[in-house]
């Protein structure tokens, strides 16, 4: 059994949390217990952090990637 955290701007509902648990339970092969961490700076979406790996599904993360791509192209 491993621990992980769900970081979200808005508190996800119970069915969403259950879905996340089962998916990651399959990926990691063991039961995953999540703690919930609110973080409004995410702007939207969810981040899941398990055992030193971060799954970034947040709006802030996506915007950051776009900024990076725009910075690296052209003048």
């Amino acid at each position, binding site marked *: 059994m491993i621990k992980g955290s769900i970081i979200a701007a808005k508190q996800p509902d119970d069915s969403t949390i259950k879905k996340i648990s089962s998916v990651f339970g399959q990926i990691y092969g063991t039961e995953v217990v999540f703690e919930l961490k609110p973080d409004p700076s995410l702007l939207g979406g969810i981040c899941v*952090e398990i*055992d*030193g*790996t*971060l*799954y*970034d*599904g947040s709006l802030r993360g996506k915007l950051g*990637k*776009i900024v990076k*791509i*725009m910075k690296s192209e052209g*003048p």
Partner: protein
Amino acid sequence: MFDWKTIGQELRGRLDQYAPETNRLSRSSGTVLSIGDGMARLDGLRGCRLNELLEFDGGGYGVAMDLVEDSVGVSLLGDDAVVSAGMKAYGTGQVLKVPVGEGLTGRVVNPLGLPLDGKGRIHPSGYRSVEADAPGITDRQPVNASMETGLMIIDAIVPIGRGQRELIIGDRQTGKTAIAIDTILNQKDKDIVCFYVAIGQKASGISRIINMLEKAGAMKYTTVICSTAADSATLQFIAPYSGSAMAEYFMYAGRDALIVYDDLTRHATAYRAMSLLLRRPPGREAYPGDAFYLHSRLLERAAHLNNDLGNGSITALPIIETQAGDISAYIPTNAISITDGQIYLETDLFNANIRPAVNSGLSVSRVGGAAQSRAMQQVSGQLRLELAQYREMQVFSQFSSEMDASTQELLQYGNTLTELLKQRNNEPMEMPVQIILLYIVTKKLLPPGMPREQFNTFKEQFPRYLLLHYPEILRAIREEDGLSDPLQKQITGSLGKWIAAQDIGELK
């Protein structure tokens, strides 16, 4: 104000092209356990690779240098202040890369490729990893083309070839940087791209060097990679590898590059600081166990590629500073065994006004004649031996006042040779001029017993006289292979005319 329509269209256009290369949603993440002195210890970061570039939440970057079972040691690139304990950091999945390409030429950059000269953004042709594998054995061919430094004593006695690594070693203030800079200045119009990597020097010194290069027009083909003494140990550590990556762009494009590492002693000191902070066990002189590998992997990247790979080359001039002339200390002995020869500068010679203060007995070039033109080989072949004989006799001259004629002749000849090999700073000498002067002196064509001032006048004015009245001789030396008999006669003839015009005696 803002044209929202156009901005909106731009954004939509860019978003349409937006195809993230890493569609993966996940990256390794960790938390800063401790931070201090430019090193941080991180928890987590599963799957982190060695030398992986890490990004901190606060915007800073670092390199994962130490992978231990339960933590990662990271050296920070840049200011520690942006990182704090408890902060999150993420793996980028990539190693450290620097911008490379023609856009770097003429610029002054820091070891990460960021501009320091205020001349605007760098427009790179691409990016190369800072750490890279050296060319393999079958990728190379022997060094066979000469790298002219413009300094007669080096081009004649310890000639450097393209693709060679020649160490410049000596105490402080013996003219090590001067030799490197003069070599860069001499590469004008020679289609060699130059790189000067300043490691841990004072900013005022680097600024003086850049001014010198600009005044001489050398910045047109030179890039300066600058890590001052105020920069973190990590930046100083990376600087030479960044420079090498930038030079490799040209080497693999079939061109010749010259890179100066000034100096590797400070580089080793910075690496020692990093290793001790990473709690790696100290070895000899407190350097870490891989102090040799530190420099060997850097210098092996300078090579001469074979024709299949484009025949490009990187010539490396690493500089090492010794303490009290001790070339048997740890870092100097490492460097001497890695490089293809050394130019050994001595304080005593420098103080006796013999500059460049090259000790011709201890200096060696393991490439040697293969890098010299036939003409230069013809005139300089005996030089090293003759200088050694002169030095032997010099000892005796201090004791006995009565010497036989042949010893006196030898001493006089040695004095003349020494005088000939002296050269002023920032005054590189073209190869044909060197060859002619060496020919005249080694064949003893000048009137004997010429006073020193007269000889210096000859050294200064005769090349100008040739350029004015006999430019075909200079051209012939460049174009022909070796000094043919008619060419030798021409040289002797022109000398005779010059002497007659000076009215200083007869040609021997």
